[in-house]
Structures are given as structure tokens and as C-alpha cells.
């Protein structure tokens, strides 16, 4: 039997679960700490004790985190980045970060550079690479004390040589400079790819610190098993890859909670509401997987083209602050957040929160119920009715058909959810509070192939089939169950500049990890 540890490090809570095959042995919820590590350590000790398993028997640890998304949304812990584009004289009218919210561009430092270089669609150079310009930028990088750079060249998805040469020039002049190349991150579509590369660069030192903290916390708890981090599409990436590409974890939080909800209930089609301390994420589950958003998704106000679940958030959670009278209520969007344990009335504080209402209504037993015993029942009912309306609105938005789908309520704040939302039944699975960590523990294994095929001697269909089977083999080698494999990305980019009708094929397949079916 495979013992897996799932951890979810959120902005407010750090959750941990231990799964034995499909069985949840134990789940715990702790507060996220400033240093991340001590919160994880606390959760680890608690869950190991509760499950009563030997540390040496834990086979693998999976961590999901919203740490990097939150950093961008809250504009904190982001490093200044030299954003360098190679493409002049083209592209001049829309400089790097042109469509970013001003406050985010400012935090990332507003160091925008455009130089001659880049490729045409057929591989010709738009202009010769401006090597002197790069050396000038290197001097500025040193003078300004910038530690990371993001380089984007026009048409780098078909030829990444110029980005690589630019990186080498910068790193020769600025030893220790971290450089992110746009060709490592995205696809055709300069602005979106460039923005992703810049965001990624701004997160590198936070990624390094965070991954080190994850590793230290596991080691500190005596766990020697390998650990992985979950990414946007619900699959796992190795820890060393997260240090280089933190941006790929952006939407893993909602993905994990939705997959966790499906796993815990056995329901494949549903609306999932994940009620946390500050916000509620609402998304739709189709055949056990989160419905994907369309082509472009905003992250912290920036347009990106990542593959992400279609989730939206409303400002409602366990810590949401309530003010006003019963016929003039204000619910949120402000929340006491992680200070719930000291500021909510049931914990002896002076702020009325949604959690206090749930306790007053007898829906939850948290803190000291006597502190809310004197509340006007009409007021409590009015607040609960309003919460019900907010959730109904959110659920209606996610609903794509009139079919009466169930609603699955997960997350620590799901005590707020009524038993029915509109005409829909609400399911609250066992371990609902730690669905995120469960989702991380059951994350999928992927297999990926990206290489150049020649269509001179083979048909396009044969090449795609070959790439598919190579990706499948990679996934199976990494521990995926063959029957569960499914293609989630398949793309070919014809490389007009190479002879022999060359095309770059990218295929990604995902499947369930072995040991989940027992």
C-alpha cells in the first residue's frame, strides 16, 4: 500500500492529510506562519500523530501552494526584474508590461528595455542582436542592484538561440544573475509569454526560499521521501523545477480543492465552492476535472495564456467582517484573515465575523458559543439569508446547464454554506475542511514530449502518434496508470526556417498515480 502525504499551504491555513490508497487516515488544519516552515512542521507533526503511521513508511509528499499567486495578487515579496525584449525595430509601440496594472509594474521595478534582435516567422533575423546594448543593460543591472532578468525575443518559440545568447552575454557580465527565457515558459503570443516570463523572474527568490522551507520542514519531521509540488493543470512537478518555474503553480489551489472535492464525494459533475477565511472560490467540476478557462486568464490583473481552471472568487469567508443592522447589512469584502483566532467574537475578540454567525446559529461549535448567545435571532437569520444569496449568485454563475447538479462545499469556512443553495443540494464530505490537501495528495502524473520532427519522411499524423506514445511511456515510467492516461495538450509549431518540413511537437498526457485504485 502507498502512503501519501498531502499538504496545502494557503494564505491563512496550512492543511495536511495522510492517505492510505484511497482512504484518508487523518487530516489537520493549522495556521500558516510568516516563515511558512514552522506552520508546515506543526501540521506535519499533528497529522503524523493523528494517523499513527511510521515516518519512514510515508512514500511520497505532495505540496500545493497559493504562495506564489498570492505574492502577485498582493504585490509582495516580488523581486525587481530587468524586462528585456529583443525585437526592435518591431514591437516598439507596446513595450514590456504595457497592459499591466501600474502598481504591479512598479513593484517589479519598471525596468523595461527594448533592443534590436528577434526573428521573423520564417526564422530570418528581424535585426542583428544588439550585443552592445545588452552590455549596457548589464552595467545598469549592476548599478541598480537588480538580481533577475527576463528575456523575450520575437518568435523565440520557433528559435530560442537569440534568447540564449542574450542570457550568456548578461550572465558573463553580471555573475550570479538569474535569467528567465520566455521560450522556456510559453507559446506564440509575445505579450502573454513575456508577461509570464517577467512574473516568473520576479518570483524566483521567493520560490527558492519557499522550496527550501518545504524541504527543511519535511526533513525536520524525519521524512526522507521525495516531494513534489502541484501545478496549474493538477499534475506534479519536481521541487527543483518549481525553483525555476514558480509561475506554473499559479492556479494549483483551486485545481486541488476541486479535485479533492470530487475524490472525497465520488461525484464527478458538480459545482464546487471552496470557502476559506477571506474568499470563496467557485468552479465547475466536469467528469471529475475542473472546467478549464478559455484562452486568456487574468492573474493579478495581467493577461496570461496558462491552462487554468475557470474559477472566480467572491469576498466571503469565515473571517469576513459583518457590519450594520439586519435591514442594512454589509458583509465583507474585508476579512480578519488569519487573525480570526483572536479577533472573532467567539474567540474573545471584538469583531463580528461570519464564523460568529455560524456559531450563533448552532451550525458550528468553535470557540466559546456563550460569547454570541445573546445575539438577536432575527439578525442572525438575516445574515444567513444574505450569505445564502451571495453563494447562490456565485453558483449560478458557474452553472452551465439547468441540470440539478449537486454543490460540494469544501474548505474551512464551508460551515457557512446552507443545506441547499437555490434548488441545489449541498454536499459536505467528511474531511471537507482539508479537501485542498487531499487534492494535492491525489495529484496526477504527467508525461511530456517536446521535440522537432521531420515531416519529410513521415506524415503529421504518424509524428503526432509517435509523440503521444513517447509521452505516455514517460508518464507510465513516472508512476502513472496506463488506463487513466489522457492527452491534455497537443500542439505542433511548423518551423518554416528549417529544411525538411520540420515541426516542433508538444504533447502532454496525464494520468492517475499508481496505488490510488486499491
Amino acid at each position, binding site marked *: 500500500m502507498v502512503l501519501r502525504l498531502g499538504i496545502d499551504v494557503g494564505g491563512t491555513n496550512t492543511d495536511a492529510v495522510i492517505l492510505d490508497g484511497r482512504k484518508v487516515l487523518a487530516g489537520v488544519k493549522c495556521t500558516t506562519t510568516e516563515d511558512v516552515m514552522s506552520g508546515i512542521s506543526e501540521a506535519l507533526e499533528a497529522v503524523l500523530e493523528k494517523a499513527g503511521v511510521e515516518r519512514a513508511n510515508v512514500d511520497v509528499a505532495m505540496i500545493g501552494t497559493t504562495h506564489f499567486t498570492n505574492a502577485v495578487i498582493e504585490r509582495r515579496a516580488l523581486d525587481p526584474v530587468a524586462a528585456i525584449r529583443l525585437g526592435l*525595430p518591431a514591437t516598439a509601440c*507596446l513595450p514590456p508590461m504595457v497592459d499591466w496594472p501600474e502598481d504591479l509594474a512598479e513593484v517589479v521595478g519598471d525596468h523595461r528595455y527594448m533592443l534590436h534582435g528577434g526573428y*521573423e516567422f520564417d526564422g530570418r533575423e528581424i535585426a542583428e542582436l544588439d550585443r552592445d546594448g545588452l552590455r549596457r543593460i548589464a552595467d545598469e543591472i549592476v548599478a541598480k542592484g537588480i538580481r533577475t532578468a527576463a528575456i523575450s525575443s520575437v518568435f523565440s518559440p520557433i528559435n530560442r538561440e537569440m534568447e540564449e545568447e542574450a542570457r550568456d552575454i548578461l550572465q558573463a557580465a553580471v555573475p550570479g544573475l538569474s535569467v528567465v527565457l520566455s521560450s522556456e515558459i510559453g507559446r506564440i503570443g509575445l505579450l502573454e509569454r513575456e508577461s509570464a516570463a517577467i512574473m516568473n523572474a520576479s518570483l524566483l527568490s521567493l520560490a527558492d526560499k519557499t522550496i527550501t522551507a518545504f524541504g527543511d520542514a519535511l526533513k525536520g519531521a524525519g521524512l526522507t521521501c521525495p516531494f513534489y509540488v502541484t501545478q496549474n493543470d493538477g499534475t506534479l512537478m519536481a521541487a527543483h523545477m518549481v525553483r525555476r518555474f514558480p509561475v506554473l503553480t499559479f492556479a494549483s489551489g483551486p485545481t486541488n480543492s476541486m479535485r479533492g472535492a470530487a475524490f472525497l464525494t465520488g461525484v464527478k459533475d458538480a459545482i464546487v465552492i471552496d470557502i476559506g477565511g477571506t474568499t470563496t472560490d467557485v468552479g465547475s467540476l466536469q467528469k471529475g476535472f475542473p472546467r478549464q478557462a*478559455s484562452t486568456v486568464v487574468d492573474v493579478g490583473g495581467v493577461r496570461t*495564456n496558462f491552462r487554468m481552471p475557470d474559477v472566480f472568487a467572491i469576498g466571503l469567508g469565515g473571517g469576513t467582517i459583518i457590519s450594520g443592522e439586519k435591514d442594512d447589512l454589509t458583509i465583507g469584502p474585508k476579512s480578519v484573515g488569519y487573525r480570526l483566532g483572536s479577533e472573532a467574537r467567539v474567540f474573545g475578540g471584538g469583531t463580528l465575523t461570519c464564523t460568529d454567525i455560524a456559531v450563533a446559529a448552532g451550525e458550528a461549535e468553535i470557540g466559546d458559543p456563550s460569547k454570541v448567545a445573546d445575539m438577536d435571532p432575527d439578525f442572525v437569520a438575516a445574515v444567513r439569508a444574505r450569505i445564502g444569496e451571495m453563494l447562490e449568485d456565485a453558483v*449560478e454563475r458557474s452553472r452551465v446547464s439547468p441540470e440539478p447538479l449537486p454543490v460540494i462545499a469544501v474548505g474551512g469556512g464551508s460551515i457557512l454554506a446552507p443545506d441547499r443553495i437555490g434548488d441545489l443540494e449541498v454536499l459536505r464530505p467528511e474531511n471537507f475542511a482539508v479537501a485542498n490537501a487531499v487534492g494535492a495528495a491525489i495529484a496526477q502524473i504527467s508525461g511530456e514530449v517536446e521535440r522537432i520532427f521531420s515531416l519529410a519522411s513521415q506524415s503529421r499524423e504518424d509524428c503526432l502518434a509517435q509523440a503521444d506514445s513517447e509521452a505516455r511511456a514517460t508518464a507510465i515510467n513516472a508512476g502513472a496508470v496506463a488506463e487513466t492516461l489522457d492527452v491534455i495538450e497537443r500542439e505542433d509549431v511548423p518551423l518554416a526556417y528549417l529544411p525538411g518540413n520540420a515541426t516542433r511537437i508538444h504533447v502532454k498526457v496525464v494520468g492517475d498515480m499508481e496505488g490510488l485504485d486499491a
Partner: protein
Amino acid sequence: MSFHIGPEDMEEIALGGAFLGTGGGGDPYIGRLMAQSMMRKNGTDVEVVAPADVPDDALCVPVCMMGAPTVMVEKLPNGDEALSALGALEDYLGRKADYLICIEAGGLNSTIPFAVAAHTGLPLIDGDGMGRAFPELQMVSLTLHDIAATPMVIADDKGNNGVLNAISNLWTERMARSVTVEMGGAALVALYPMSGAQMKAGLLRGTLSLVRDVGRTIQSERKANRHPGDALISRCGGVALCTARVVDIERRTIGGFARGKARLRGLDADQGREFLLSFQNEFLCLEDADGTPLALTPDLICALDADGGLPVTTESLRFGLGLRLIGLPADPQWRSPEGLKLAGPGYFGYPHAFQPLETLAESPAREPVFT
């Protein structure tokens, strides 16, 4: 009636342009950003005037981008190309332009003229030459009214420009296309210089208002948490074609165009059916699994994301994406024998005689197949 478009209105123009762009014409997002930054920089709105208010002797000039949309989203413009094309055309004609025209009420070209108008301060005329997007420059109502595309100026990001004079609009397309490929697959052009009188005879009227209305409909429906498909069908007199997921996408940048086809697998009511969607920059032909056409150029095949309801362009098509396809009838001029010769299925090499999508929708092939 004239109206003004400011930076805040550009989002609805871009949305409407993306929908009427039938997948092609490039992502209007780029043109929207260019127009917004120019409007903000110059602190100006763009005035859009009715064709009837333009004097007969005014010089009206369309400016637009030419090339493959897959190139335009990657190699963004320098920003000076359109001005250099317009300026060179004015020098050649020995006369300044009085009005700008949007040649194509879809895709990037629905937003680019706003950037040029904001830069020059010239008003824009409420109309266009296509009522949609088409891949080739002779495919405009102006050709049907014997208005010449030349003299025309084509300009690139590097500062090159050239004046073309041609014996026909088809020859203009051929020459300009090969120059576009040499210029890196995308170029800006000023062409079809015409008098106010010619413009009134040849332009499709009110199409910029339509772009704005379609954009507003998409915005308000999405705000009300509804998929905009139904509202657009009733606003534009359209036909629901299918809801389906992309299962294979094949594309090439050939001869200055993004050409290719997408295989789609039906969803919801179309479960069990398969479709083939062919494009040359724009979606031009939709067939079912046995090759029966469901919609054919010059009728419009518009694509919305099946989930989010935003317009989808050919270059953003990708494996797994759900689409809701909607057919709109083309302007009657396009369904005439001359119009079909210019932009019908035969011109693009599709083995179908044109049939209006209303007729195709009533044929037995539309009956849902359950498996």
C-alpha cells in the same frame, strides 16, 4: 449621427471586432492597446462620422494591417508603419487625407484605424468594406463598385515602404502579398484612396456601430452571467451552428496566410457529431463528418468560447478548447454572383457551391445524430 470613442470604449470595439472577425483578422487586443495608448498620450477621443455627413469631394483613406494573424500576435508593430504608409500615399497623391476608413470591421483591423485616427486627429467613417474580416485585400465591397485599391502604400516595421500601382485589385493583392511575406509576414497599408462620393456608393454602412453594439452585447450578457451566444444570434439574425471541442488543430503560415483546419467533436446537443472547420486567417467553411457543409464563406462563421463566451480567434484555437459556433448571413452584396466570385467557397478552393446558411440549416443533415 456621429459618436466618439475614447480609451474606455475600446474594449467593446475589440470584443465586437473579434466576434465579427470570424476567427481571423488578428486579435484586436493588440490594436486596442495601441489605440488606447495613443488616445491617452494625445488626450483625445476618436470621432466616428456617418457616411452621409462626408462631403463628396473629401479624400477618404482606409488604413489597415495586412498579413498572417499568427505573425501579428508575435511580431507587434513598431507603431509608425501606418503613419508612414498614410504619409507616403498623401505625398504621392499631393493631397492630405480628410477622413480615415476602417476597411475590415473584424479582427485587428477593427481597432488599428482608431490608433491611426487618435494619432492624426482625423475622423473615422462609420462603415467598412467587408462587414466582417476576409483574408485578401480585393475582397471588399469597394471592388464590387469598381473602386481601385491603388495607388497603395505598404510599409514595414523597419522603415521600408513601397507604392504599388496595379491593373486590378486582384493584382494589387498578389503584389502586396508577396511584399508582405518579404516584410516578415505582416505590414501596414494605406490603400483604396477614394472621394466622399465613391465612399458613399461603395462602403457598407453603419458597421462600426454594429461592432460597438456586438461588443456591448457580449459585455452585458457576460456581466449578467449569461453566455452571449443567444443574444448575439437574435441581435444579428444568426444561426446556431454547433457546440464542439477542438480535438486536432493543424496550421501553417503559408504565402503570408495562416491556413489550416480544426477537427471538432460535438458537445451537449451535438454530442456524437464531428465537424471540420477550415480557415485561411478567417473561418471559411464548416462541414460535418461526411463533408456536408453547414456554413460557407462569405457568410460569417463566428466562434465563441463555449464556457466563457468570449470570441475566439484562429491563432488561439488549441487542443481541448470548447467552441460555440454561430453563423451570420453576409451582406447581400456578398451573396450576389459578383460577390461570390470574389469571396465565395470556389475562390478558396472548397468543393461546395455557395448556399446561404439559412438554407443549409434547414437541410436534413442538421438533424442531430445520437450514438
